[in-house]
């Protein structure tokens, strides 16, 4: 997911298509060269790659059996030892295995929620910027309303009302965290739409759909991408928060869920640090990695940021 993903398929014939492909390859290479200069971004990327690898290979390394309570190998709340490097949880399950297994849910929910949130934000932002008038006013007032609502409280309310499942959590986070993206995208849309080529496209008979998808969307895409990367870390934190508050699906292992289990089992007051610290650190590290990447992407794609670095 580097630069824009919209193929200007309107161009006729294979020639222009090949040209476009070339241009995109060049842009990607340019992007990578720029990105490479951000050391923090590279560190973030490396950490993310590591976590992605761990999450994707989890079925091979630990397997879903690690989450089984009936076959738990250890004693409840057993401390770290050779067989259990991070100790055991309240059911006697291997915490290291759970940590690895939980990364799948945490990352998945984080990514899905971020995509949902950014998709809603982009849709609202582009349409509000494009149509203006009463429609834009209405949309922006809705955005403002969501903006002033405390996100977490709204997400808790949603997660409480709906059934407890991963989908609910994704929805609760996605539906509550889009307003910032909408505002950003709208501003960019307004800027793009005031350029002369949009006027020309309109004069040549380009409709709303054409203008929004062929001209505005590719131009706001860098912003959207950067925003999405940043949003993932927020979503992972929100997921952990909701799970910690007991609003997740209790039978699914996630980092936030582990923290909630630890708290319920009384691990905080009895000082069973091995139950609390690893999931907490994992959340912090992944969120940090996404933020580092997001910042780097942002400064590469947004000419007004980071040029001097």
């Amino acid at each position, binding site marked *: 997911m580097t630069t824009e993903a919209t193929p200007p398929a309107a161009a006729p014939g294979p020639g222009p298509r090949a040209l476009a492909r070339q241009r995109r390859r060049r842009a990607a290479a340019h992007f990578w060269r720029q990105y490479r200069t951000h050391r923090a971004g590279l560190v973030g990327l490396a950490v993310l790659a590591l976590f992605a690898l761990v999450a994707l290979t989890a079925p091979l390394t630990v397997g879903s059996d690690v989450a089984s309570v009936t076959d738990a190998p250890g004693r409840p*709340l057993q401390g770290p030892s050779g067989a259990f490097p991070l100790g055991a949880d309240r059911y006697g399950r291997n915490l290291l295995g759970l940590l690895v297994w939980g990364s799948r849910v945490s990352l998945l929910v984080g990514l899905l929620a971020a995509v949902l949130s950014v998709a809603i934000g982009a849709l609202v932002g582009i349409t509000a910027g494009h149509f203006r008038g009463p429609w834009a006013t209405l949309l922006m007032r809705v955005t403002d309303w969501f903006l002033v609502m405390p996100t*977490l409280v709204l997400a808790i309310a949603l997660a*409480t009302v709906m*059934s407890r499942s991963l989908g609910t959590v994704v929805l609760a986070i996605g539906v509550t965290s889009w307003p910032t993206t909408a505002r950003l995208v709208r501003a960019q849309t307004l800027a793009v739409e005031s350029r002369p080529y949009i006027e020309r496209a309109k004069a040549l008979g380009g409709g709303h759909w054409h203008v929004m998808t062929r001209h505005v969307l590719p131009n706001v895409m860098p912003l959207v991408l950067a925003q999405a990367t940043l949003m993932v870390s927020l979503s992972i934190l929100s997921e952990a928060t909701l799970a910690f508050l007991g609003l997740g*699906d209790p*039978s699914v292992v996630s980092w936030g869920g582990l923290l909630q289990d630890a708290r319920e089992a009384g691990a905080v007051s009895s000082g069973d640090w091995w139950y609390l610290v690893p999931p907490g650190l994992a959340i912090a590290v992944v969120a940090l990695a996404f933020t580092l990447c997001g910042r780097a992407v942002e400064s590469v794609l947004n000419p007004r940021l980071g040029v001097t670095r």
Partner: protein
Amino acid sequence: MSARVRLGRRHPEPPGRQGGRTGRERRGARPSVLRLAALTGASALTLSAVLATPLNPSPQQAEAEEGKKVLTVAVAQSVDSLSPFLATRLSSTSINRLMYEYLTDYDPGDNHAVPGLATEWKPSADKLTWTYTIRSGAKWSDGKSITAKDAAWTFNKMMTDEAAATANGSFVANFRKVTAPSDTELVVELKKPQATMTALDVPIVPEHVWSKVKDLSKFNNDKTFPVVGNGPYVLTGYKPDSYVRMEANKTFWRGAPKFDELVFKYYKDGDAAVAALRKGEVSFVSGLTPAQADSLAHQPDIKVNDAPGRRFYALAVNPGARAKDGTRMGDGDPSLRDPRLREALFRAVDRKTLIDKVFQGHAVDGEGYLPPRFSAYFWKPSAEQERGYDPAAAARLLDEAGYKKNGEGRRTGKDGKPLDYRLLCHATDPNDKAVGQYLKEWWGKLGIGVTLDCLDNVSDPWLAGTYDLAFDGWSVNPDPDFVLSIHTCDALPATPKRTGATDNFICDKKYDALYARQLAEYDPARRADLVKQMQSRLYDLGYMNVMAYPNAVEAYRTDQIAHIQTMPAKAGNIYGQDGYWSWWSAKPAASDGSSDDSDSTGVVIGVIAGAVVLAGIAAFLTYRRRTTAEDRE
């Protein structure tokens, strides 16, 4: 019988006396908000759990400095109502116990009936007329004398006003007439003999106060303080989910309590309550998790009390909820009405593992219905009757009953659809969730699907009958009448719109006949035998599957409480007793004053540490922002 309480944590605790539904309702939706405040960043939780304590309102602090001896108890279960006519949860019935004296009390040693408001009682020859001698010279907390008329008014109100019978109606259902011929004489005439006449767990309220109440169904007794009472403590303040404050009744006939004030302080988070106990901010915490109990056991000045509980922890099956008028309610899965299916489900439950892993030994294996602590009534299934753990037999039963596995390995019902049940659990109860996980896996191996439906407020689906299976639990009184009565047809709601006393919509003619016989049986041995037969019948029905009798695991500070009465005296619990013994008997420790100082030091240090951390974060953020701004220029 009542509601489970859970102490700070989502730990169900022994319910108190009057019926409360345990399961349902133990907590409202509020934990999220409170916890939220403590939250902010998931990684910051350790810090927040500690910080939550100093931030909590501590109403009693001010008075404590005037040299009053204050006993602070951490509680978690919300109060449903402070009106003795309405309250059913353990938290509120325990408070009612402290506010109002009953006719008779249970001896803390061996549970036999001892004088309470009544000094003597005797039945007529036909056992249909009971005469109680009411204590003379005792006074309400506003100075008015307590007379038999107050008691008569209380009972008559419950017999005539349906709202007044909400909580304790089962005790007066069989009363024909209650009169007070003189100030010290109360006469109760019965329709049929009633075995519970020396165990009437009904708080007696002052007529001169309560006769002014217009609508008992809406009056929660929590507006004007102090509330006139005659128990060991007088209610002087209440803020929902924040605190309940009571002052010692210096004129209490059994002797004034040694503490001047008793404060029930709310901690919705178990670890926060334990942290407060460690710092001496509260003197008593109940409902500890095994991990908390273990870590507190090594702590100086703290005593952990781990005693057999008076509660059972069960898996209730929706028998097809019905109202008394026969209307079906709710949407319980009809396949659960097949006794073979219920038997198969329960035979796949390994109770021993639950005791070992979930309760970590702080519970006793559940078999019959009443906990072994009530030895006279304790019953366990015979060998051929018992549904022991045997997954192979369970699978065989299902095969024989025609619940075949489909291509995906799931059992299908008579309608060809896979069997999939909803299991109602308390979102705030870690035991429910943990046991739910085990059930899910055990039943999954059988080919039966389970969805854990963990809700903050389970009352609504529970009362509406919209569940298939549910976690259930009640505290049992020394006289088991109440917990037995909640499974009779009479307890069903009159119509689907009404609320009944029923626990789980069970209605069985054989059981009801036995219930009527035991209630009319005055001979203790014969009554105990009938009660055992009832438990046997209930067990065979398979709608109430008791899994465990959880212990009461609680801790108190020995540098604040020198002595406190457990009930029963040997290996007994402190919180949620069948009486006011614990809080009435508690003696302050001599060093109480000095430990108060260290508390406030702890709070000060905590606040300063928190402020330093916050300042650090703020400085860091400011610095960050400044650097970004520079970069942007």
